[in-house]
């Protein structure tokens, strides 16, 4: 039974892109965020269709061929060999105009999958910084029904090593120079003053102990005055006698010899 070849999927003009808002987490080393396409698939998909996200390396996006059925969908585990995979399978109703939705989709945010090697589609972290290109693909029961255009290449972050960080300060602050110079000069003046005061004292005490060398002493030599001894008054009863001979008590005159 020959069935007619499936119609090629309708090409929608929508271009997927990373949200322009300044979200620091929209591009990390293994994940990236995409704007959620709203009202894009309504005309081409009915409620039972699934919308997939195709992720391919930027240089492999041209070689990507839409899988003819759900069983042929390349999965996350085959990314290193097939250079592309499909993930984020969601019902078309999730992208409908009326659906309340978060504004971004996060690709690579599921770290729990991919280990068991199962057949379920996995939104695992991307293994390398890329660059990658993505597009949305609407898959019906008969195969792909509609697709969007490929996005611009998305390059993930590459982290540098912390050893490249130089912690040295840019330049010396003015504080240090002021404090150091002023304190050093004050300290020097104090030390000089202390040495001067102590030196002067040592000088003075050295001079006071010297006893005769007139050239160093500054004070005038005070003579000790030795008064000459005054003559002692003669004891009463002494006749004058030549000085130095002492004093003798006078004797009564001897009786005169008889005549």
């Amino acid at each position, binding site marked *: 039974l020959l069935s007619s070849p499936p119609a090629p999927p309708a090409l929608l003009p929508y271009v997927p892109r990373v949200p322009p808002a300044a979200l620091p987490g929209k591009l990390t080393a293994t994940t990236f965020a995409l704007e959620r396409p709203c009202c894009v698939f309504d005309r081409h998909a009915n409620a039972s269709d699934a919308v997939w996200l195709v992720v391919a390396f930027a240089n492999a996006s041209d070689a990507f061929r839409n899988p003819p059925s759900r069983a042929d969908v390349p999965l996350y585990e085959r990314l290193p060999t097939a250079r592309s995979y499909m993930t984020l399978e969601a019902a078309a109703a999730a992208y409908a105009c009326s659906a309340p939705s978060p504004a971004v989709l996060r690709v690579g945010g599921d770290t729990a999958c991919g280990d068991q090697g199962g057949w379920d589609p996995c939104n695992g972290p991307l293994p390398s910084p890329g660059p990658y290109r993505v597009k949305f693909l609407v898959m019906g029961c008969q195969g792909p029904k509609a697709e969007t255009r490929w996005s611009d290449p998305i390059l993930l972050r590459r*982290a540098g090593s*912390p050893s490249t960080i130089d912690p040295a300060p840019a330049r*010396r602050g003015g504080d*240090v120079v002021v404090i*150091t110079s*002023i*304190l050093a000069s004050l300290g020097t003046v104090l030390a000089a*003053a202390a040495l001067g*005061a102590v030196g002067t004292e040592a000088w003075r005490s050295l001079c006071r102990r010297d006893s005769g060398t007139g050239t160093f002493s500054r004070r005038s030599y005070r003579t000790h005055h030795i008064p000459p001894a005054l003559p002692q008054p003669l004891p009463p009863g002494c006749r004058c006698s030549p000085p130095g001979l002492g004093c003798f008590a006078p004797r009564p005159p001897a009786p005169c010899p008889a005549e």
Partner: protein
Amino acid sequence: MAKSGDGIRILQGLLVFGNVVIGMCGIALTAECIFFVSDPHGLYPLLEATENDDIYAAAWIGIFVGFALFALSILGIVGVIKSNRTLLLVYIILMLTTYAFEMASCITAATQRDFLTPNLFLKQMLERYNKSDTDNNNDKWMAEGVTKTWDELMLQKHCCGVRGPSDWQEYTSAFRSRHKDADFPWPHNCCVMDAQGSPVNLDGCKLGVPGYYNSNGCYDAISGPMNTQAWGVAWFGFAILCWTFCVLLGTMFYWSRIEY
């Protein structure tokens, strides 16, 4: 007396007043340095891990110098009032020693302020936060200190990284080697937490949606207290030293004029 009685009295009065001020400033310096050493902001582990905690050494010296200044000021007052040469000589010598120590403390504290750059803390955070394969006990101790301090800092000051959460994205780190980038673009403590301590919206935090993560860097919360400490020790010590310089010169002049 070599000078007139009035001149000596005025000089004595000035010296006593100068010593009273030195005593009070000494107590203030001790109190200030005890406050800094007690680490009210819990930032000491970060400084310890830089292996250059000279600011704390300067504060410790400040404690003892302040106390010494207080004791010496009392000695100085007694010596000046009694005009005792020996007491004043002891006072001058000990004051000069204390002066030298306080000089060292001031210059150290002033120099250390320049050392605390954002890059220093960034490198330390990236290399030590959540580090698991530590080389030795000392390394392990420092890594644990840094991790604990950063966790508390991010929770209490509502900040992330040194300049912002992108620090964790721009560089590889010990944290990155333990936690996958897809789950933890930055540590979960960077997320806005609810009353139970879990993130309000983890997906929003991972994407960086405003309101669900802390977008500020923590550098201001770290450098603010540290700079205040360094500034306080350095400039207050400098002011005390300038005043002490004048009092010491006056005392030396007074000492040289006392007759035996």
